């Protein structure tokens, strides 16, 4: 008998409507755990990576981990694994809330979606009962409307719903899959893949159980880890009180907060969009995902006069005065990167992003690139329909909505920053890697983040190797941000360890407080499999190499492991990191060597044999 895993996956062919329940491959589960790992393995084995990501040939996999749905702190996560339309790489987008656990309680580890429905539909899963239902009546509706309508239609309390908004339907290249209205599998356009399949939502209700191998010892390790989280100043105090937004002031002071499309690295007025300001003026309460001890979620409300300032009149439903966010990444992309220090504009645009189902990082960063194009005279009012100047909250809110509905110039922004900059002849203004926009840490100041962004398997991403932890917060130990020495190794360790956390079904935020050593007993007592520190890290390395192989088959190579010219050649202009550029070229050969790859970045046969991938 399997513990942790339910042992069953659900496969739905949307073209034919065929529903199949299959046992999961236990050997793969042992080698890749679940979530990002097991999902990637299924995608690797079942799909040709060269297919068009928005064609029916693409598969959309929802994967929970063995600890999803248990009492392990922050065991809320599921991952969406597919070919990302923004990047063309494999993508692995993670979300919390209550949807993943509910899928486990319904009896499934994975959900594999294939083909394309003829007409808009949604999936209803209630334990053993699985059905496709027509969704014409919710097609076009926002995320919150869709959830409300489907919940009402199904009539049974306790449904948890994942869905796409208008952005996903319109194949916006950075559309999200949203669940619990405000939680997002955010990056690389997974929502567009769902939209391309004519699938609006997946409603899940489960009343079953998740079994663990050794309940007594499992609970003992869970309580141990929880105690550490409660006593840790970041996870016990900082994140619950201020959310991830607590980072704004910290990162800005150190000069790592990219501003105005990375033309600067510090923002005047950053305190206006900080977690402290949000807490003091607009926060209603904090909110937790399933089994979370931290509760970093921000429930926010705008007073009527502030909300009225950015009234959006074209789509009435977007006119709300309460919602969730912003988080740090969201506040950076729409705030600092666009030069906007008006918190209310960020809150409003963030709600729109949630309700239309868009990734606020790529959304804000694409707008930032457009603002640079506009200020440099490449774009003008005839093209954009309105002035797009850095610092304009009005432009942000208006364009957020236009992007989600692909209206006017929003239709061009909806293609993402790379395609926009290419189209207007200035590819150098695209700030990202492999087609995906950078997140909120300047890789010129933080050398580890540079190598992490460049080698990430889904394009620029802070969630695959968060070396900021070591470079800024000293977790597990403090390293000099400007140094290149040791950063290749640090990045490799972070990449492998993160892959493990993503595969267990736990939330990455745990690692502010606890380490893999604390997570390991939960995995061992949960699954009953005797992983040790070395074998669990090897799971991480295996996942990383498998994703790399997938990308190689899709046509990516070492040439794509690079950073934009601005990051390599235009130094930071102010603050403690003034004068620095990314020296990532110094670190890359060492990184490939540590990975056991060839000098041009290909996994060697001996490495693949060692990992059981060949």
């Amino acid at each position, binding site marked *: 008998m399997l513990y942790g895993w339910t042992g069953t996956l659900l496969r739905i062919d949307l073209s034919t409507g065929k529903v199949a329940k299959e046992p999961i491959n236990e050997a793969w589960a042992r080698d890749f755990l679940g979530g990002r790992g097991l999902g990637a393995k299924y995608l690797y084995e079942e799909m040709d990576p060269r297919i068009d990501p928005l064609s029916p040939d693409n598969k959309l996999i929802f994967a929970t981990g063995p600890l999803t749905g248990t009492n392990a702190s922050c065991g809320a996560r599921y991952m969406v694994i597919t070919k990302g339309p923004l990047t063309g790489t494999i993508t692995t987008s993670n979300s919390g809330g209550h949807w993943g656990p509910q899928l486990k309680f319904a009896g499934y580890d994975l959900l594999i979606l294939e083909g394309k429905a003829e007409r808009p539909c949604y999936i209803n899963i209630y334990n053993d009962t699985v059905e496709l239902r027509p969704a014409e009546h919710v097609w076009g509706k926002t995320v919150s409307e869709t959830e409300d309508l489907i919940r009402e239609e199904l009539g049974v309390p306790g449904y948890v719903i994942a869905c796409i908004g208008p952005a996903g339907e319109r194949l916006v290249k950075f559309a999200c899959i949203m669940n619990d209205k405000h939680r997002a599998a955010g990056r690389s356009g997974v929502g567009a893949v769902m939209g391309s399949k004519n699938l609006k939502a997946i409603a899940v209700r489960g009343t079953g*159980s998740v*079994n663990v191998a050794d309940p007594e010892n499992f609970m003992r390790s869970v309580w141990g880890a929880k105690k550490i989280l409660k006593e840790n100043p970041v996870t016990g105090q900082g994140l619950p009180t201020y959310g991830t937004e607590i980072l704004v002031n910290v990162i800005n002071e150190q000069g790592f907060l990219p501003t105005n499309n990375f033309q600067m690295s510090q923002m005047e007025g950053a305190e206006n969009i900080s977690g402290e300001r949000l807490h003091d003026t607009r926060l209603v309460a904090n*909110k937790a995902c399933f089994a979370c001890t931290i509760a970093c979620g921000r429930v926010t409300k705008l007073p009527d006069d502030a909300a009225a300032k950015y009234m959006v009149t074209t789509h009435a439903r977007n006119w709300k005065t309460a919602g969730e966010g912003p988080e740090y990444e969201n506040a950076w992309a729409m705030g600092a990167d666009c030069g906007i220090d008006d918190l209310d504009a960020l809150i409003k645009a963030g709600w729109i992003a949630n309700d239309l189902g868009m990734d606020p990082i790529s959304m804000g960063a694409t707008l930032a690139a457009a603002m640079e194009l506009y200020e440099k005279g490449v774009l003008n009012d005839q093209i954009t329909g309105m002035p797009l100047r850095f610092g304009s909250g009005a432009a942000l809110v208006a364009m957020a909505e236009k992007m989600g509905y692909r209206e006017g110039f929003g239709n061009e922004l909806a293609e993402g920053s790379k395609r926009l900059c290419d189209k207007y002849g200035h590819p150098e203004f695209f700030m990202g890697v492999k087609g995906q926009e950078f997140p909120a840490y300047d890789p010129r100041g933080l050398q580890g983040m540079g190598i992490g962004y460049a080698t990430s398997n889904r394009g620029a991403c802070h969630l695959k190797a968060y070396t900021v932890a070591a470079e800024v917060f000293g977790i597990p130990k403090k390293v000099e941000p400007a140094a290149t020495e040791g950063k290749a190794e640090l990045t490799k360790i972070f990449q492998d360890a993160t892959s493990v956390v993503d595969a267990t079904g736990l939330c990455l935020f745990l690692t502010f407080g606890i380490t893999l050593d604390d997570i390991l007993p939960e995995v061992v007592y949960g699954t009953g499999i005797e992983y040790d520190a070395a074998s669990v890290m090897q799971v991480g390395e295996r996942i990383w190499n498998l994703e790399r192989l997938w990308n190689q088959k899709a046509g990516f190579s070492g040439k794509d492991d690079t950073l934009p010219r601005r990051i390599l050649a235009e130094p930071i202009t102010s603050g403690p990191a003034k004068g620095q550029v990314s020296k990532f070229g110094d670190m890359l050969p060492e990184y490939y060597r540590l990975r056991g790859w060839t000098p041009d970045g290909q996994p060697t046969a001996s490495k693949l044999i060692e990992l059981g991938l060949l």
Partner: protein
Amino acid sequence: MTDSKRILRIIPDKCTGCMQCELACSWVQTGTFQPARSVIRVNIFDELASYAPYTCFQCNEAWCMTACPVNAIAINPATGAKVVLDEVCVGCALCTIACPFGTVFYNPDTHKAFKCNLCDGDPACAKACPTGAIEWAEAPLGEWVGPWAEQINASYQEALKGGV
């Protein structure tokens, strides 16, 4: 009743909606994680940032006991908890209908009623709660909803006078 005992005091303002109480409760009862078997339930009120865990009040005048035709619900003298005696329960589910608060449940697998028994004096939900929204606290009986009790009482008085 004025005697002071330990009760489950719930402070909804502190709740973040993480459901760890439901997980811990189901673990005690089934050895697995199965919120559907939890006898403490968290109600989430979307976008109001309001979460309300609730479970059996352990009423002084317990209607579940009154309704039971076979006297399968007894009082644990140590904790004051009203507990279902599995060996006596015939699974008629009358208690689940009699409870005004919906905190007695029926298990279709075992054909028995089940409800909160205060974990024999060491409630797992209170231990599991990361924010202190559920306390295992000394308090005069009848006050376990804390500040809510006053509010509920006030609206009750208002209703008596013919208000809304």
